[in-house]
């Protein structure tokens, strides 16, 4: 019986994908492009070896960001501030990590810890404001994003700027060799392609850690029960205030890892053009993947695929921004259909239950 509902709930993302592709095709038709041809080019380009490595690389921070958001979502807490949290954490980690050099594993572990601590502290502010001052976390985290951006811009030009550099724009010093994450190309035997970020391993571990944390620990149980029924949670002895702060800190800790894949694997320093927007993209992935570690992985890969394969479109005179539209369509339609199907399943369960009592 349960299997049946699982299959039904899987249909939501499939319906959403179909409709989004339909809508995007319609838009392409309106602006006078052939949708079939467009999608064919995208798929062809997106399935080359180089693209696949790039897609995996892009999906790593997306996935971790989605997990950071999902920890909050599980208890009905909206951490929109992953954006600011990961940027703060990455900046400080990049700065401190460049100051010394020890054996690679310890060095990288140290950088990770710094990023996690800074990000979770920044996230904790929002938790505190919610619990003590009653400010909704959506507003406080958004404001903290702007404040964080300002603080980063300030400290990057003063405190953390590389000393004696002849480079025009502010940036931190480069990480020493020991602080760089080795790529996985040797492992997969694809040495002719560009670097596959070694952080992939961490991302997989993070997925497992998230699963264990949410479904196998008391904290995870508290989170889930508060998310599905706050009143019942309160009566079962959960302290909601304490839980909000803890959830925010855990969410921020995951957020700390978001920027590390590009930092350790590619940029090796924090610069002005360090990738932003991963925090917001993560919200979409979490919604699409329904906070499930596997679903979010699929979502992250899908969005990464769209991003990468859209790069070819400009050469074919199709605006590549169509990809942003597609992501947004998928997101909006999928949340609608999840709700529709959730209601359908609840109805079915009630029907089944009443049938059983009748018998």
């Amino acid at each position, binding site marked *: 019986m349960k299997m049946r509902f699982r299959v039904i709930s899987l249909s939501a993302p499939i319906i959403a994908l179909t409709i989004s592709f339909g809508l995007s095709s319609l838009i392409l038709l309106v*602006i006078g492009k052939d949708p079939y041809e467009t999608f064919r080019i995208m798929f062809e380009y997106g399935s080359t070896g180089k693209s696949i490595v790039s897609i995996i690389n892009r999906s790593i921070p997306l996935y971790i960001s989605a997990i950071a958001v999902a920890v909050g979502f599980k208890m009905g807490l*909206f951490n*929109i501030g992953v954006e600011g949290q990961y940027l703060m954490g990455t900046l400080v980690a990049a700065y401190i990590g460049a100051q010394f050099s020890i054996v690679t594993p310890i060095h990288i572990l140290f950088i990770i810890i710094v990023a996690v601590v800074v990000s979770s502290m920044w996230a904790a502010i929002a938790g505190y*404001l919610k619990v003590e*001052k*009653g*400010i909704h976390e*959506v*507003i*406080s985290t*958004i*404001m*903290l*994003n*702007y*404040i964080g*951006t*300002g*603080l980063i*811009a*300030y400290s990057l*030009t*003063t405190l953390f700027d590389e000393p004696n550099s002849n480079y025009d724009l502010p940036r931190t010093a480069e990480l020493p060799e020991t602080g760089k994450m080795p790529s996985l190309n040797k492992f997969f035997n694809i040495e002719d392609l560009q670097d596959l970020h070694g952080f992939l391993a961490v991302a997989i571990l993070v997925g497992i850690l998230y699963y264990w944390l949410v479904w196998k620990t008391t904290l995870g149980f508290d989170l889930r029960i508060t998310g599905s029924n706050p009143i019942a949670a309160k009566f079962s002895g959960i302290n909601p205030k304490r839980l909000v702060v803890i959830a925010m800190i855990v969410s921020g800790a995951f957020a700390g890892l978001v920027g590390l894949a590009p930092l350790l694997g590619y940029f090796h320093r924090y610069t002005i053009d360090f990738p932003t927007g991963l925090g*917001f993209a993560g*919200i*979409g992935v979490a*919604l699409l993947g329904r906070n499930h570690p596997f679903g979010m992985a699929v979502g992250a890969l899908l969005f990464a695929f769209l991003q990468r394969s859209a790069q070819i479109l400009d050469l074919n005179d199709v*605006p590549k*921004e*169509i990809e*942003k*539209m597609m*992501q*947004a*369509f998928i*997101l*909006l339609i999928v*949340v*609608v259909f999840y*709700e*529709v199907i959730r*209601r359908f399943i609840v109805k079915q369960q009630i029907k089944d239950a009443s049938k059983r009592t009748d018998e």
Partner: protein
Amino acid sequence: MKKIFKTLSNRYIVFMPVLLVLVVAQVETYSQLTTSGTFGAAVRLAIPILLAGLGGLYSEKTGVVNIGLEGMMIMGTWFGAWGGYTFGAWQGVFIGMLGGALFGLIHAIATVSFQVDHIVSGVAINILAAGVARFLNVIAFKDVQYASSTASPRIQGDIEIFTMPFLAGGKIGESETFNLLGTIENLDIFLLSDISAFFLGFLSNISYLTLFALALVPVSVLVLWFTPLGLQMRSVGEYPAGSESLGVNVYLMKYIGVTISGALAGLAGSYLVVAGTGTYLEGQTGGRGFIGLASMLFGNYKPFGVLMGSGLFGFADALQLRSPQAVHGLLIVISIFLLILTFKTFFEKKYKVSILSFLFSAAFLLWFMNSTSIPNQFVYFTPHITTLIVLSFANQRIKLPEKIGVPYKKGEIN
């Protein structure tokens, strides 16, 4: 008299800083704090926040949380710029409103008809709006000069500007009139000059669009509290099942509320373009939709409260744009205010808070003494940090609509 004194001491959180700002503004370096120019800029910057806040009000009074205000505002900026470029300034305003209303409608469909979680839908709307605006901009202005993927060309024409005759020296026909408030401002009399500067900011060189936006404040009071429609809308936010039983069309009311909300957010966005930059720029809204939401909370779900809240944020924004030195003056204001708070909490025997505010007060004083200006990057987030500080003082006495954020399905009791 006793009553006035009592309200004053109850609202010391509001009045103390105002008084301190007035005193600090007497110092030459910080005089920018209270000039008519600053107030004028504050009005211009407050209007988008005000409109977004009013938008939030219409939606939330019917029980639908509208985090998507920012996205609807983004639509307002793009459609406003497109309409302004194609047809002219006022048409741009109207089209921007329509663009916002369209996204309000989408939010309504998702939250009302499909009962999607309001915040989830709002977040999705924000992401959708950013994508749509970018895409439309690329499509619509592909081969137009001075346009790029993140900016539109300049709009045609302007909104006319109005200056009050006699009080602010506006013209009647061709002849100049006396500028009463301007003269008083230049006399530099404590309080009196500052007050006339305040009114001068409202009355001179003010766009008709600003006047229209300000007029929406009393209109909103009228619509929401003095019409049958407003009563129905508010009842839906408080007790939908009860309203349903009295024959109110709950879904329709929510649809109306959220769509009006979108239209107002769209107006806020097109204001940024039409009365501000003259072009659409990506990221131009800069979180003002959320600040609007904050001003609604600050204003305790009342239109005039929203006006006050947005005025405060507009003022913070104006200072950061016009005069970074003046923002530096705010440091000493904060320091003194925290010192007062230290004594107050000390006599109330809240020693922990007292010590904390004393430490912060000292820190701000040190910062003030050891610097001559605030770094640009800090000035940039003045409105955002103001939002957090203001909300953390104001949030305790908010009266939310009873069923805010609760999805309502016909025939279900909740």
